[in-house]
């Protein structure tokens, strides 16, 4: 562990390096490093620079509005928020979902995870993975990938589009649709819609397999490098199905420690606060959740694809399950802790999504018309879902008038906050310590952050990507060196 790097003992007299904003992640974050005269790293932090409280915004709004409004948190994974909030509202309206409603929601969710994983892998991560972390920055982007690997880029675009089409047909729009409502969904699939999705699904499965092969090859060609990059051990948390299977839509919470031992299992998430607490630190707007029984220092964990693939006992679709076994064997049979293994796990999940979509498309419940259910109303609702980036918690309390009085959201990126900081500190020590800083070296830090696919808009509401600016500031606060990366990836001093 590198806790000692979280806060430097004597920050005075150190120079400050700022990476802001971190590029090719969703939203706006920054990294600051404190270095001494020999460029030794004394402090490394990844933090969030902006925050607008969504929880406040929805206070006083009627609960049935929330699943739609909450999607405005994010342009990349709005469906996760739609579903997370809708699940919470199911509890509030006392609904047991009909088979049609649940399957339509699951389909929407698989489409969402598929498109989000495709976006991350092909657009955001593949430039680093295919060209190298300190390769020519002018080419290290999706345009460069399209030029050098046109097939890969084309498949990425097509997979993303397919996922978006699933979302459109289940929610009415490609982004910010209205599919899931309290107690069910507002729309089923028509026969034509179902058939239009069936037409291309085999191709999507084939390309998802190619993606797994690609990342596997990249990884296995340099196993020591990939395993060692930003390596650290941690706990993992995710939902699992009752039988231990990977389930992105619903399940109980499972957390395992760094040795793979259960901390809790099949936990009813409607009382998550008994198990997960959040710590506030003065230097970041993003909170730091931890598992209560392990305490602040030992209780932090990772969520997302790596956590899910490590945590589940099996994947309920055959091709992805085969790949999970390969992945597991590669890790020596126990949980793979490597930061960059996120990419591999993510592609196994993308394959699972494609297979899951195919399976669902053959289920006639998708065409059913029994879409909404209501039961006895409750004043509190918790919805948890495995969003593309990890466990997403929505928690609401309403008053007798049915207006929101309190809301708490713990988004995936927040769960990973501590772990991302840990990765940054590791990489800073491994690659930057004592070195003259270059763009390529600084990109190593971003590569570590990017592995988590953080969504800072979810965590903060900041939208849009901006160019990266790195400043070297000496002890007196004077800028002694400056590196600019423009939004097109080009650098100038």
């Amino acid at each position, binding site marked *: 562990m590198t806790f000692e790097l979280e806060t430097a003992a004597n920050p005075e007299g150190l120079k400050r390096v700022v990476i802001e904003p971190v590029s090719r992640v969703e939203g706006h974050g920054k990294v600051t490093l404190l270095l001494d005269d020999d460029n030794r790293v004394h402090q490394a932090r990844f933090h969030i620079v902006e925050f607008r409280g969504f929880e406040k915004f929805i206070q*006083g*709004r*009627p609960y*049935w*509005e929330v*699943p*739609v*409004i909450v999607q*405005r948190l994010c342009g990349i994974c709005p469906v996760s928020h739609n579903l997370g909030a809708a699940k919470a509202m199911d509890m509030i*309206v006392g609904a047991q979902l009909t088979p049609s409603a649940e399957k339509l929601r699951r389909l929407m969710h698989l489409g969402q995870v598929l498109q989000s994983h495709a976006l991350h892998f092909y657009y955001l991560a593949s430039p680093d993975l295919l060209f190298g972390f300190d390769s020519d920055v002018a080419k290290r982007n999706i345009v460069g990938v399209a030029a050098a690997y046109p097939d890969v880029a084309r498949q990425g675009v097509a997979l993303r589009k397919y996922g978006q089409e699933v979302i459109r047909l289940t*929610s*009415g*729009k490609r982004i*910010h*649709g*209205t*599919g899931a*409502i*309290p107690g069910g969904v*507002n*729309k089923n699939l028509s026969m034509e819609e179902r058939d239009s999705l069936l037409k291309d699904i085999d191709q999507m499965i084939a390309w998802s397999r190619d993606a797994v092969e690609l990342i596997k090859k990249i990884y296995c060609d340099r196993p020591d490098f990939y395993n060692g990059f930003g390596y650290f051990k941690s706990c993992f948390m995710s939902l699992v199905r009752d039988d231990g299977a990977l389930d992105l839509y619903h399940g109980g919470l499972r957390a395992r420690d760094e040795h793979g031992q259960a901390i809790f299992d099949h936990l009813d998430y409607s009382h998550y606060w008994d198990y997960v607490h959040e710590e506030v630190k003065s230097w970041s707007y993003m909170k730091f959740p931890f598992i209560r029984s392990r305490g602040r220092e030992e209780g932090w964990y990772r969520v997302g694809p790596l956590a899910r693939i490590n945590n589940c006992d099996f994947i309920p679709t055959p091709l992805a399950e085969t790949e999970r076994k390969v992945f597991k064997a590669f890790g020596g049979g126990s949980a793979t802790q490597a930061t960059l293994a996120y990419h591999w796990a993510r592609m196994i999940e993308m394959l699972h999504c494609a297979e899951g979509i195919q399976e669902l498309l053959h289920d006639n419940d998708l065409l059913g018309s029994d879409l*909404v259910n209501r039961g006895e109303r409750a004043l509190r609702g918790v919805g948890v879902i495995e969003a593309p980036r990890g466990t997403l918690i929505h928690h609401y309390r309403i008053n007798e*008038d*049915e*207006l929101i009085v309190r809301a708490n959201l713990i988004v995936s990126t927040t769960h990973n906050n501590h772990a991302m900081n840990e990765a940054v500190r590791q990489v800073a020590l491994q690659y930057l310590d004592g070195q003259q800083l270059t763009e390529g070296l600084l990109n190593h830090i971003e590569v570590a952050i990017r592995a988590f696919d953080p969504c800072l808009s979810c965590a903060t509401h900041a939208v849009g990507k901006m160019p990266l600016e790195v400043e070297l500031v000496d002890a007196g606060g004077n800028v002694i060196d400056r590196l600019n990366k423009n939004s097109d990836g080009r650098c100038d001093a």
Partner: protein
Amino acid sequence: MSKTITIDGLAVPFQEGQTIMDAALVSGVYIPHLCHNPEFKPHGSCKLCTVNVNGRNVASCTMPAVEGQQVLSDIAELNADRLALTQMLFVEGNHLCPACEKTGNCQLQAVAYYLGMMSPHYNHFYPQREADASHPDVMLDRNRCIYCELCVRASREVDGKNVFGLSGRGIKTLLVVNSASGLLGDTDLAVTDKAAHVCPTGAILIKRHGYAVPIGQRVFDHITIKEVQTGGSDE
């Protein structure tokens, strides 16, 4: 022989006692309007329906049709005024379409689309207005009220109650409800009342129904407000 007026050069027949708006609607001629609803007596407050009659601007929803009137409606100058009025309505209240369950079914939004409104243009007032969810089945969100008084008229004329009213003047105007507590839950409004269903915007809503109609099946998803209100096609 029926009497006629002309609207934008088109001969439009009318019957004694009809307004220009009445005659236009019967003939499928669209004059943008918000506070008018043919089921109720005209109100003449939003001024969106302003037309030019023999050189003078008047509200077509209150102006009786008179033989031989030359009416201009669909002209650049009047449409610019209508757009400005609509934009003012948007900034005077809190009309956040992406966060409103009435989206796709809202006449204010539909008129804005029809008039080609691309932005609110004016600075938002962001007024502080209360939502009232005290009624078990009906919710009142004053943020979206445009003071058309349709609910006031419906409650009085159709429901035989007196649930809604406007108080205050100008920018301080507020929709109030008729109960000692000032809360909707303490009035005799019933969910089946006409007043609960007449609001052209999302200010009066039936509870728990938000977003039940999928995108693609909402009133204005495929047709414009002109087609909806005149039964014609948008040519």
